[in-house]
């Protein structure tokens, strides 16, 4: 039933009706600028393996991975405004699901990735629904997300079926295979897969922001009671955002397993990972489209720099030689610096927040 007050619009489509395809097309059109930028960047990045290889290529893969994780976290933390301190839960669910399905059932990691995403989405929806239902906000909400992640970690730690503290290993196949997502260690294919996943994630985000559900999610972030008074079901859309964020994070977890061949409860579900997942967005710019990716570049870049410093320190920093903890120290200083001086992130300070 349509009712308009003082506005004649015979073309009005009834609420709930209207073709989804035309809606999607419209959203695509609105997003054409960002999509074009993305296309340009992808083209440039796709050329990278021609110039870079070996250790540097591995670093590039890690940058792309944390770009994906940052983008995923940003959906929940930035666009929906629900600060999560326990995103490792979703990463680990993706990784372990993929691992179990691969090792126990022999299923392709691509299927594992999809199933992992669904599992994580369900866990995220549950976590989100409970927290929203009981009106958790701010630090309480963040602590709850932390608890949900820790519980998974502790459960897996004590689970013999999942190898407990020993961890899960992916067996090496004799030959490389796209279906089983395994290539020789110096193959650029891992890079391309990760680039593809990150691109997909960014497309989803770009479209989301310009779509109707995206507008609702942003409105809820801006002012939840007002959004409700405007007819938007806050719970439904917040849970959706969490589930989407969880699914995307899980995909990252699945890839991690296939690239590094090993996970354990600490790596997959630990607090350190949860922090590493949220850092790119914080450093780059929470609530922006490009912020998390930029943050990932800075983060990993600085990490590598510090590793080099430790291996071959210049004369005046010789006390650093061979010591551990330097990279995290630099992260910490970066984080503190950002919060104090550029709280909207390196990119976010200069860019406008998503314009709707």
């Amino acid at each position, binding site marked *: 039933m349509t009712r308009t007050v003082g506005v004649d619009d015979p073309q009005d489509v009834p609420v709930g009706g209207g073709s989804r395809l035309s809606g999607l097309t419209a959203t695509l059109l609105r997003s054409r600028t960002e999509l074009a930028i993305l296309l340009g960047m992808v083209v440039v990045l796709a050329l990278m393996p021609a110039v870079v290889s070996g250790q540097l290529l591995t670093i590039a893969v890690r940058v792309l991975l944390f770009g994906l994780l940052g983008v995923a976290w940003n959906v929940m933390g930035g666009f929906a405004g629900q*600060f999560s301190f326990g995103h490792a839960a979703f990463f680990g669910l993706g990784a372990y699901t993929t691992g179990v399905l691969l090792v126990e059932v022999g299923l392709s990691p691509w299927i594992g990735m999809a199933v992992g995403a669904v599992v994580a989405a369900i866990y995220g929806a549950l976590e989100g629904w409970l927290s929203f239902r009981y*009106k958790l906000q*701010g*630090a309480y909400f963040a*602590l709850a997300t932390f608890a949900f992640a820790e519980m998974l970690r502790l459960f897996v730690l*004590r689970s013999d079926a999942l190898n407990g503290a020993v961890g899960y290993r992916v067996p090496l196949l004799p030959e490389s295979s796209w279906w089983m997502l395994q290539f020789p260690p110096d193959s650029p294919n891992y890079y391309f897969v990760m680039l593809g996943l990150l691109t997909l994630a960014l497309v989803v985000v770009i479209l989301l922001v310009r779509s109707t559900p995206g507008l609702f999610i942003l409105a809820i972030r801006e002012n939840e009671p007002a959004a409700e008074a405007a007819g938007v079901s806050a719970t439904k859309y917040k849970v959706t955002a969490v589930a989407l964020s969880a699914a995307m994070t899980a995909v990252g977890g699945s890839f991690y397993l296939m690239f590094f061949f090993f996970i354990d409860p600490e790596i997959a579900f630990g607090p350190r990972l949860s922090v590493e997942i949220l850092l790119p967005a914080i450093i780059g710019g929470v609530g922006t489209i490009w912020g998390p990716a930029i943050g990932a570049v800075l983060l990993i870049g600085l990490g590598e720099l510090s590793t080099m410093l430790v291996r071959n320190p210049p004369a005046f920093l010789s006390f650093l030689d061979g010591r*551990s903890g330097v990279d995290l*120290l630099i992260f910490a200083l970066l*984080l503190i610096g950002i*919060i104090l001086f550029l709280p909207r992130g390196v990119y976010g300070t200069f860019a406008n927040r998503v314009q709707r």
Partner: protein
Amino acid sequence: MTQTATAARRPPAQMLRTAGIAVAVIAVIVWRLTTLVVTPTVIVQAVLTGLMAGAVYGLVAMGLTLIFGVLEIVNFAHGALLTLGMYLGFLLVDRLGLNPYATLIVVVPALFLVGAALQAGVLNRAMGQPLENQLLLTFGVAILIENGLLLTFGATPRTVGVTFGAPLRVFGAVASFPRIIAFVAALILAALLYWALQRTKLGTAIRAVGQNAQGASLVGIDARRIYVLTFAVGASTVGAAAVLVLPFLQTEPTTGAAFTIIAFIVVVLGGLGNVTGALVGGLAIGLIQQLGGVLLPGQDSLMAVFVVFLLTLFLRPEGIFGGRAT
């Protein structure tokens, strides 16, 4: 902190559900007790260890709830300050041959100064910012301290050698002297802190600012000075706890991290800003941790703690004793 007081609006259906969950939990506990081969000694040991650990949790949490309650800062560096205190104590024992407990005289004031510097120099700037930023800021400080210690001392765990003779036997359970001392001292220090908050001028000022910073400044209290002092007091509380655990915990850069999260759980359980609640909550969490380990042998002892934590967040966010609603 925007946690609206929902205690007021609890229709009968919700009370029923809460009661139902409580009954279910008790039923599980009773079932486990009957099916597990659990001797009274095991229970007594769990209770004893739980109380002793809990007292220390309580002491740490008291500092945190003070900071949380008065400054509204989510201090994720709390555990790292504990580690700092432990290393300081270790240094004093190692290099100067002091008795571990004697280091209290140095560590507590030292942490007081560190806390004051931290608040005045770094955290002060983030006071008005959203909670998430403060959380991240203090988290950054935590990583800084942890890795600074890692860099300086390396990852090898250090221990402080203490000779006390045979442990005490209580009803068939075992309690080592350092833990007993920690228990008693924690309770004494907690009482001291409580007394100081209630009876001294500074304590009253702190409580006033915690209730209403604007109102307090209207009666001549310098809120900013109180913020610095409150954080300092919170940090020195942690310093005291560090000395107490030094004799029986290994000192490594990550030792304090576990305390941070437990302290937060205790603070939520006891009620935000509620200092007595923090102590009681600490004892409760200590008990839950040990008893949980007994009743759920397949799971990590912290699992029970997290379950209780989530239940508290959902069903009684204001804590057992009811802390500040906002």
